[in-house]
């Protein structure tokens, strides 16, 4: 029982990332009708927001200490991050919390990137065939990825979680098992909670605000909303920006779990597309449910007990599920009739 619970927990953080990316993808599908292959790149850009913030925060002041010398006889260099030199302990704390702080920076940055992307490129592709949408966003993904590579290099750049969240949480005690059975890295649990918060926020935004109501109306019948005198295009642009923010935040918070490198977006994109397809194109709830489901299934498949029965299952489980789902339920788990069918 505790082994099963542990695997469920293991799948939650990855599932959270899948769900967040897939949610953005689905929103873009539903509103703009565009297949965005650059969505993984947005996830990656978010992660690199965290990298950039960290590297700005840890800019160092170098002073020479004439009283000490190094082994080479030169004066010892003392490196202190400016922020620590200026603000003392508070500065050190800020540096420690660089990943959560990056969120504040990432929101406007990703919103800007998203809006620029939609206005600058995507909007010219509404009326073009899906194949061309796929191709142009695919090209954009390569471009973004290569720009990041030229700026930050090709190697993964580890981002530490704050000291507070570095430890393990003994989850077993909380739910009544013996101590030490289910220990779980705290940051992963935080990531899961974070993804739940974001998902709830997105749903609440679409469900309970006037803006969200208009957007939902636009998803259902774009033409009628336009006839009512509402500039639906403008709202959809903001929705695209919002989807970019969601993907970006998913990336920021994921950095302590997986050191970001320039092609992490592509790896997640392929899986997120599968998630969207499994959940049902255009269904927000489906995307979230499928994201968590596939994350958990993947962690079950990487259990040693399962791997000895079917070797290599952990590598292919997600694709296998996608194939089965598409053959049995062509619209996905919660797909609506008439969405993305032709």
């Amino acid at each position, binding site marked *: 029982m505790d082994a099963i619970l542990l695997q469920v927990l293991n799948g939650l953080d990855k599932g959270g990332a899948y769900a967040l990316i897939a949610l953005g993808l689905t929103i873009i599908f539903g509103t703009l009708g565009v*297949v965005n292959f650059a969505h993984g790149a947005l996830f990656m850009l978010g992660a690199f927001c965290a990298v950039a913030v960290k590297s700005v925060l840890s800019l160092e002041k170098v002073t020479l200490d004439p009283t000490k010398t190094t082994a080479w006889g030169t004066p010892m260099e003392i490196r202190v991050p400016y922020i620590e030199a200026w603000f003392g302990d508070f500065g050190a704390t800020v540096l420690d919390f660089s990943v959560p702080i990056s969120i504040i920076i990432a929101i406007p940055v990703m919103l800007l990137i998203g809006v620029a992307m939609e206005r600058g490129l995507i909007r010219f592709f509404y009326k073009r065939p899906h194949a061309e949408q796929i*191709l142009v966003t695919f*090209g954009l993904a390569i471009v973004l990825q290569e720009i990041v590579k030229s700026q930050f290099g090709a190697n993964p750049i580890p981002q530490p979680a704050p000291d507070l969240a570095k430890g393990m949480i003994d989850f077993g005690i909380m739910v009544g098992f013996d101590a030490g059975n289910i220990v779980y890295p705290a940051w992963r649990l935080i990531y899961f909670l974070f993804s739940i918060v974001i998902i709830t926020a997105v749903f609440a935004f679409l469900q309970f605000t006037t803006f969200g109501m208009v957007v939902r109306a636009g998803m259902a019948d774009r033409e009628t909303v336009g006839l009512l005198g509402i500039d639906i295009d403008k709202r959809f642009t903001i929705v695209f920006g919002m989807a970019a923010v969601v993907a970006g935040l998913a990336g920021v918070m994921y950095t302590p779990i997986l050191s970001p490198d320039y092609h992490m977006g592509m790896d997640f994109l392929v899986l997120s597309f599968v998630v969207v397809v499994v959940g049902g194109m255009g269904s927000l709830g489906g995307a979230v449910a499928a994201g968590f489901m596939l994350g958990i299934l993947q962690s079950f498949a990487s259990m040693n007990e399962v791997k000895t029965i079917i070797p290599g299952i952990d*590598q292919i489980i997600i694709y296998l599920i996608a*194939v089965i789902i598409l*053959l049995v339920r062509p619209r996905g788990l919660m797909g609506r009739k008439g969405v993305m069918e*032709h």
Partner: protein
Amino acid sequence: MRNSSMSKNDLILLFCFSAAILAGPIILAPIGAGYPDLLQKFAIFGIFALGFNILFGLTGYLSFGHAAFLGAGSYTAVWTFKLLSMNPLPAILLATLMGGLFAALIGFICLRRSGIYFSILTLAFAQMSYNLAYSVLTPITNGETGLQLRQADPRILDAALGRDYGAVLPSSDFFGIDMTGYPGFYFCAVILIACFFFSMRIFRSPFGMMLRAVKSNQNRMNYTGLNTRPYALAAFIISGMYAGLAGGLLAVTDPLAGAERMQWTASGEVVLMTILGGSGTLLGPVIGAGAIKYFENIFSSFNEGILMKAFDFLPESLQHIMVSISSLFVGEGWHLTLGALFMLIVIFLPGGLMEGFNRLRTWLGNRTGGGDGGAVPDTAPAPSVGGD
């Protein structure tokens, strides 16, 4: 009888194509591409793109997983070298068959859906093959190291014929002709011409017409009581066989197969080749493949020194700025150029280079007053061209 049904234009086109390919080393020498390693790549990726075009250009099904067939072909060819013989004929034959077999399996499932579902399904299958090749299938694929020849390989046929390669690592040879350098290129070139001929026959056949009908309106085809799936599946298998053949040839010219050939970036590359040249046209994919491989070769060999020389005519401060900007796009940054090119082509010239040529010709024709019509080599229903 076959030739009697070919139109005169097609014969001329085939003849010109063959002549251009065979004279490749001479024609391409002035632009610095007249050496066999690169020419081999032109020919091999030309075959790959020709095959992809039969699927995407004719039926409109956008597959994002064709690299899987290329990889399968490569592995099969290297295994044939190891087990049977160093002669390339059995290797490419088996590689083609394996590509077709893979395509039949994957196509059978993927073709149940169309549109973007199809793209994602093929992508999923290719990623699955790639992941498997890296992990569980390591005994067959040799994982990250890649599958290599070894001196101790059995090579049953060679042994039966009493061929002994001695203490050196054997390389593939076609009845005694070593498959490296120019012989290797001509081997690939002849196959490319055969593939081109075959693709031309498909384009002109009723079967090809049926595939185009699938692209333009599949529903209507279904309403007339026609089951389109066997046609689409046949196209998928044929293009898988082309990809397998190309993979086999890659192994013939360089007997090494690695899983990275199956990665989805490789699938994206063949899509780009086809689009760049012009999907749905006969010549386009070959031109696109050549262009991409050529620029890849040129751009990735550039470095700062060459760039400094290129911008020598500018004042020094400007020269440095230009060099630092353009060095982003060359050398290691070649992929950035590739991505940007990808976007530019899709945005401005969705019909590819062939459409560009046609536009240019119409434009020139209009300027000189009344075009002469000219020999239009491709009767493919080109995506609506702006000019009239």
